[in-house]
């Protein structure tokens, strides 16, 4: 995904001063990347939209505390990832995610039926999707993911390995297993 995520300093300064037009401009600049991040991590588009909304409420309430040490996108992304993971945790309280995945069978297509990457990725559990996306796409380290998720580094590593093993099985072809 290639999007320009740089915003002028003056816009940030105006947003910090509470200028509603500047706040909306920030929303417009980051709406798609925030939603995309949330949607890749979460199974349902409505949940991702809720995360988008919650993220920007938090951004508007807290922008005064943003010091500009890192990129604005990095700061907003941290908020969005945290909100999405909170939602995953809440959902896990209600359902046993792995059980759902194993019993619905959608994660295990018939042998020989290769899925495209998008569909294969969609079939992963939300926790696996979150780890894969944060690690492989957003460039988070296992330490950062572990901290965000309130889990251990080995949890993050094993989730990533399980997810890739599953993707390899589903995608077939050059991904045909050797282990």
């Amino acid at each position, binding site marked *: *995904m290639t999007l320009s995520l740089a915003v002028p300093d003056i816009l940030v300064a105006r947003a910090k001063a509470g200028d*509603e037009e500047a706040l909306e401009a920030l*929303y417009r600049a980051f709406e798609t990347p925030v939603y*995309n991040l949330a949607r890749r991590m979460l199974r349902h588009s409505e949940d991702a939209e809720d995360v*988008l909304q919650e993220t920007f*409420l938090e951004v508007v309430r807290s922008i005064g505390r943003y010091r500009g040490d890192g990129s604005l996108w990095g700061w907003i992304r941290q908020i969005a990832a945290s909100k999405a993971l909170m939602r995953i945790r809440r959902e896990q309280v209600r359902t046993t995610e792995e059980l759902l995945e194993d019993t619905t069978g959608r994660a295990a297509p018939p042998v020989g039926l290769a899925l495209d990457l998008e569909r294969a990725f969609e079939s992963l559990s939300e926790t696996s999707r979150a780890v894969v996306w944060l690690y492989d*796409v957003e460039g988070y380290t296992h330490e950062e993911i572990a901290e965000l998720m309130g889990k251990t580094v080995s949890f993050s590593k094993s989730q990533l390995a399980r997810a890739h093993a599953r993707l390899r099985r589903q995608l077939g072809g050059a991904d045909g297993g050797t282990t």
Partner: protein
Amino acid sequence: MTHCTMEDLLDLRAGEGSVAARRHVTACAACGADLEALHQRAAQLRALPPRRPSRDRWPAVRETLAAERRLGRRRLAWRLAGLAAAAGLFGIVVLRGVGPGASEAYGDEIALAKQESAAIEERLGAYDVSGGVMSGREAALAVELEDRIAVIDGALAQTAREAELLDLWQRRVDLMEQLFEVRVSRTAYVAF
């Protein structure tokens, strides 16, 4: 060495991994292809087209923030009114001693609390558009607040003592404000 595990391959991709795994992957065509596929997969994930929201959520963000600002102003006004009433009551007590004047001050404060409670109820009515699209936690909180308000309403109907009435009305206002916060933030989420 047997074939590389997915953990081995991920370590190798990250530039880590054991010497034995590194040696194996250069010698074994299957594991070499697996490692290459891992690299490719990450690149393909990064190249997926961005997903875009189907609805514009900015109006909901703006409305929620505006509601918070209004609530903040209300609370400030209520606190100032409370301080003013307390100062007035203090003045009456000092000037006249505790007597008929105290009752008058209670009456003013009770009237103020009643007004505040009615105003919040009116605003709640205006916001209650969804008829129940709440998370389980929010719904439970709303029900608990409504129960506590009902208990206070019961107590209000059974007392005539002004000090107690004032306390009950003020607690009712506080609970109504909390209920408003739960309801408004949620309806703003679902209203757009």
